């Protein structure tokens, strides 16, 4: 094969994408009106500090020079990032890596549960809808799925918050962990964080609507396929047919949409964590944006970009394992 292995090419594309997004975010962040200096001075002024004094105080704390020309600041930043240093948060006065490292697990916790639960519901519902195609169950679930697909997750979040948290007091209204419980591997704490994560996870389940419609379409296509008919005639067992023939082929296209929705959910976490005051990645990202905290904003953007691009890379590289037809150009087809 004369061409470069497509996997290497795909990897290079990934690196290129991360670099391009980082550069673009860097320039946009710097071009935003205001800067960290102004934001902090304004805050101190509101607390009654004399403007001149406030400016001096801020200059003492500031670790970056907001007035540095963009190209120079950019080169500095890239060099630092490549050596693993995302800078010092202006607002929290802590290393960005440290803030992100302690926020990331919380976001991942909510995200992974949302993803798994919504895709599980979606796939099961979709398969059942296809099985009873045209029946009451199908019609009912299709309407449900369309409803779920058309509600924005943050509207659902507010509704859940109003009814389940404020009115019924079943769930906490904000936060990510119970107060007064020592963090650690103990039952009250685990119960507490699950309790706090329930509403954010529920709001994200809107994704299951789209997933179930996709699964329904895929399953109907597989159910009508010739190879299924031949398999039945060959007398294969129902288990083999339903797992190896129907499920395997119907779930295949869902695999890509699963990994793509990781990206969507990261984006959604910014608003969601604000609604629930859930101190995860998105929460800090928004706070950093208010404060024009350049290093923290950039750190958040880079992290999300890397996560999404990696998810897509994994999807591409592993799709060949689940679907032999996508084995790349290296398969010696004849």
């Amino acid at each position, binding site marked *: 094969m004369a061409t470069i292995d497509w996997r290497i090419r795909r990897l290079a594309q990934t690196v290129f994408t991360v670099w391009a997004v980082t550069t673009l975010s860097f320039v946009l962040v710097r071009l935003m009106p205001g800067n960290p200096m102004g934001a902090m001075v304004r805050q101190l002024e509101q607390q009654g500090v004399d403007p001149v004094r406030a400016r001096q105080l801020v200059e003492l704390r500031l670790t970056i020079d907001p007035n540095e020309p963009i190209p120079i600041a950019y080169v500095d930043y890239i060099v630092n990032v490549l050596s693993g240093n995302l800078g010092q948060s202006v607002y929290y006065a802590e290393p960005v890596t440290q803030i992100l490292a302690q926020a990331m697990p919380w976001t991942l916790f909510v995200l992974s549960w949302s993803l798994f639960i919504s895709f599980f519901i979606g796939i099961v519902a979709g398969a059942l809808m296809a099985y009873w195609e045209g029946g009451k169950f199908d019609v009912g679930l299709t309407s449900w799925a369309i409803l779920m697909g058309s509600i924005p997750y943050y509207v659902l979040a507010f509704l859940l918050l109003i009814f389940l948290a404020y009115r019924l007091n079943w769930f906490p209204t904000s936060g990510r962990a119970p107060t007064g419980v020592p963090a650690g591997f103990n039952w009250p704490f685990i119960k507490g964080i699950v309790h706090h994560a329930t509403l954010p996870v529920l709001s994200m389940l809107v994704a299951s609507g789209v997933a179930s419609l996709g699964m329904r379409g895929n399953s109907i296509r597989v159910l009508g396929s*010739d*190879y299924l008919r031949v398999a039945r*005639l060959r*007398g294969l067992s129902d288990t083999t047919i339903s797992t190896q023939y129907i499920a395997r*082929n119907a779930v295949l296209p869902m695999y890509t949409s699963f990994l793509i929705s990781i990206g969507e959910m990261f984006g959604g976490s910014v608003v969601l964590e604000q609604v629930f005051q859930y101190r995860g990645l998105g929460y800090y990202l928004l706070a950093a944006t208010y404060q024009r905290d350049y290093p923290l904003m950039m750190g958040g953007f880079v992290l999300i970009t890397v996560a999404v691009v990696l998810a897509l890379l994994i999807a591409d590289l592993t799709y060949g394992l689940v679907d032999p037809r996508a084995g790349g150009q290296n398969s010696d087809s004849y």
Partner: protein
Amino acid sequence: MTISQTDYESSSAKGETIMEIRNASVSFDMERGDSRVLDSVDLDVHRNEVLGVVGESGSGKSMLASALLDAIVDPGVLTGDVTYYPKNETPVDVLDLDKQELKEFRWEQVSMVFQGAMSSFNPVRKISTHFIETLNAHDYNVEEGMERAQQLLRDLYLDPERVLDAYPHELSGGMKQRALIALSLILEPEVLVMDEPTAALDLLMQRSIISLLQQIQERYDLTIVFITHDLPLIADLTDRIAVMYAFEVAELGPTEEMLERPAHPYTRLLLKSTPNLESPIDEMQPVEGSAPDPVNVPTGCSFHPRCPLADDTCKMNDPEAYNVDATHHVHCHHWEESADAIPMTESSTSVESPTDRIDRPTTRATRRSGDQPLVSLDDVEVHFEKEKGFFDFFSDPETVKAVDGISLDIYEQDAVVLVGESGCGKTTLGKAAVGLQRPTGGSINYRGEDIWDVHDSGGSGTLDWGEIRRSLQIVHQDPGSSLNPHRRVKTSLEEPLKRWHDDLDGNDRKQRILGLLDHVGMSPPEDYFERYPHQLSGGEQQRVAIIRAMLMNPDLILADEPVSALDVSLRVEMMDLMIQLQEMFDTSYLFISHDLSNARYIAEKTGGRIGVVYLGELVEIGPPEQILHNPQHPYTQALRWATPELELAAGMGDDQTGGSPIRNIDIPDPTNPPSGCHYHTRCPEAREVCKTDSPASYQASDAESHRAACFRTLEDHEYWNSDSIVDEEESFDG
């Protein structure tokens, strides 16, 4: 298999029944009413025979196939009796079996090969897995079974190691179909039901599979029920043929009888309408009318609306089976008169036609030689590079040489038919000839000017790109997708007139279009004028597409398989129409076809030429009588062999009774074509020199326009002293 006297004797000796169908009906409950897609069919299948079931699309033949395995898809309901007679055991009532018994019956006793081999394998599992799971599901010994699978695959000329280890998408269509046949035989069934098993394949592959089936049938002692729309294809495979019309069996008899003395008017008309190589073209006539709708089958004999013999009895009474003789049954009240009413050879009228046929081409060819060609292709190459990524700076991309150095001249009022297997580059060549595909090498001249020079320079005064675009038109294979579904017929047809005849006013345009619609048989034209494409049948859509191309007043039309999407009985009609329009509009055709009998029909009627394309090269071109009766290139001979004949053994030439003239069933990979003569890997005449030297185009016979790219046309070529590379062992003979 040639049905000689002895064969026929033995086939009647083995006339013991293995499957018996009595009064079988299949009905679907549809919104428009109850739809009967199989109507009280009685049929016996004899042990070890090959029974052909022939019918047009929608005649219920696939339902009959499914009924044999009690495998009608929901919501169809099968009633009647299907009885299976195992050897020395008690008969089995197939429709009475419970789930477990049915599972054992299917595939172990009767198995089935579907039309859609492309989609009959689970795309995510290897071929070997399909064999293993089938063996497991029926509690067969897997090791023994896989040995049998390997032997079956070898018998079907496949490499067992390679095929078993492949995923379905890695195999070509023909390989998949053969692997599917092997899979259906893995449990050693007695009966094999094949539902259009070759319809999606190239002619050469179809024919190769048919000859393999003959061997397989003998080797494994099979009874085969072969269902097809293509009567000539199975003429020398089958022992008996059943013709189906409107969900019933119209006629059943021994193959020889059915071909030579068909008794049902439909069979006679069907045989006459089928394009083939032998019967004089003037005798080919379409079957008038169309097949009935399953919800609304005519009363009495369902063929009566289309039948020239129909009278009041036919309208009232559904004909029972009349016995022509002990083995030949026909469902027609007037079968005794059919032979006189519908003569198979119109001896009285066809006397002058042969001379007519031979005269025309010669006169044209002489006239042509002095003329300037209309479109001239000079050493045209179209190479496609395989997808090239952003980071592929350093590597050489792979190229597919779709067209690899073809020269061809097309004259005024000419017709050239390009024939070849799929993927040989004939469509690409056609598109290049009408300026829809820019060649990567060589030139295409329209009236002496290079069209791509004109395109780049923006016109040279006498000729601009728009003029070329108007003169070179295309008619696609699928009329349904070449008409804009949101535009009425009138809008589609007015467009070219508005563009090129702006002197006409609205009424003139309308009159002109109405006249044309009427002329092509779409009457009343006022009605068709206002219709949308989906309100037209396939044949009507194709007519509109042809008229649309004609209204541009083109000099050359590329017709890419214009009839292959149509039902067999409509093809001759459509080709006649196109030929008639050629004379009317004074245009030239470049036809593309995969079917030599269609090619022959058009080329003979228009006095044109047939060009044979193989792996991007034009291997032979010439007038149809030379290509058909005096083919010089071995590939043309193979195509000739692959084209089925209606006549049996007596009508066959020497090359027909012998085995297959190809050594290798599968086409080589076009990204890496063989060196030297591309055909040497399959050619039965290949010698050492063919591996290294590529033949040029040589004069092939006395006919002026007959040329072939094969060393064998030269008397003093080093080929004749070269060693043969044909290994007798490897050769595939049918």
